[in-house]
């Protein structure tokens, strides 16, 4: 994993913790933890998506706006990096 990818994951993690209102140890959730199982709802996912676009100053592709993209930190970060790169 490149430094840029690690940076994306870390920034996404911060937003996820904030928007899902999670109380987890440092470095959690893990990259492959299922966010839907951690209690993400359609509304918190909407708020998370908007915050990610604001944070990275990007617009995610419309076909990325689906449940699978927001499955975990890795899938979200991949979608973000796809736009950034």
């Amino acid at each position, binding site marked *: 994993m490149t430094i840029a990818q690690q940076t994306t994951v870390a920034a996404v993690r911060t937003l996820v913790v904030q928007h899902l209102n999670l109380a987890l140890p440092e470095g959690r959730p893990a990259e492959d933890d299922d966010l839907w199982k951690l209690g993400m709802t*359609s*509304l*918190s*996912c*909407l*708020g998370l*998506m*908007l*915050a990610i*676009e*604001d944070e990275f100053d990007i617009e995610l592709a*419309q076909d990325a*706006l*689906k449940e699978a993209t927001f499955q975990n930190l890795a899938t979200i970060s991949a979608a973000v990096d796809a736009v950034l790169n």
Partner: protein
Amino acid sequence: MSATIEKPDVRPAQADVLIVGNGALGLFLARELSAAGAGSVVVVGPADRSSGGSQAAGAMMGCFAEATSESLRTQPARTRFELGVAAHERWPAVLAALQEHAPGGRPLLTAPETHVVLNSIGAELDNVNLAAIINALTEYGKPWQECDPHDIPGFNPRTDTRALRAILLPEEGAVDARAVLTALQADLLASGVTLLDASVRTLLGDSDSVTGAELDDGHVIEAGKVVVAAGALSESVLKTLIPDLDLVPTFAGLGFAMIARRTGGEPFRSVVRTPNRGFACGLHVVPQADGTEYYGATNRLVDEVGSTTWMADVRFLAQYSMQQLDERAASHEVVRWLAGNRPVTLDGFPLIGWLPRAGLYLMSGTYRDGFHCAPLLAAHVANELQGKPGLIDPIFQPTRRPVATRTVEGSIQEYVEHNLAGWFETGAQAAPQLTTRQIADYYRNMATQFYERVGTDYALGPDILWYAQGSLVGGRRVARYLRRLQPAAAGTGAL
């Protein structure tokens, strides 16, 4: 059939007015322009109108039967309502003129009147909207009367969903939408209007004006004036010329209906319907010109214009038609499935007016009654295109700020009422200890969270709110648009 859209050997390369869209709005506009001698008119649209609203329309000639508690509550809503009232007065003359082109010579007016029934399976919203209908009829001095539900021809619901009350609206009937479209095309062809079976790939022009359009096969038509009347596709057509056009957003309200051939029992002779229900649509049956019956309709806001139908919608419509309208419908033969996209604006008001390119005009955003309003809107737009005074209120200008008719708290309450209505209409079951108030609390919480997360004080209608909180595509579109409206609020709230 003599009135199919033709592909002339030599397609015109120029027109005085090019109309993009061959639904009711586009065709009625072409008719007005032709009658006014406004020069050469070309209408472009796919002959099958596969995803259009007009080809799937129930075409109830109703404005009072459509009334809800919102219709007359605010001045903008009243202006919108009165658009329907004024449009209604134009239909007798329209039908008299088009009847000679009617397929098979059958009457275009297929029902002279409407019965609105109040049954027990609906939710409180049914009572509220029936009261709104009666209040509107009374205020505008229109005729109506109470009637015995048992006396409504064809009306034969199951006992457990029988109507407890019914009213007759003797001046609101229905036309056969598909027969009217066919008659309109024949009328236009006889008048020298060119109808092209094609789609527009891109509008042509520069930063000052529109100059024409390129069709999907590359053919170019130059035109001094271009009217986009392409329903739920209008915005995407316009953005081929003006990518950053700041329109009130339009969404596709996908509806499903079916046409069935009766195999027994007494036929319906009037429109029989419930009041408008959760998220806009009441259940209704509309007699058609060929003796079949139209059963409609569902309404779902979707991310893309399309013609898909969900099993849940098929089940909804079939089951409730059998239960609430005529139990013999179970053995009717479905002869046609209809799916069409209504153009639904964020504020619920039409988009009618000039755009920021000389010669470019938009007529869309008519949601559920574009067909009914088409003759009036066409006359208005024809006037505007010819530099004459318009006929309708200017509040429908497409690049307006969205019309505000509610508070956020009112929006949340309306959202709760519509969801409760949807809950009970669809037969949803709850554990016995779960009260209606607790179900309402759930929906209230959803709506409140949406407003907190998006951080806006613009209050949405229940259908837009439902869509925006359930679809990431819709939610982003709504949120981004609302944030642009109030940049000072961007980034506030729970984000």
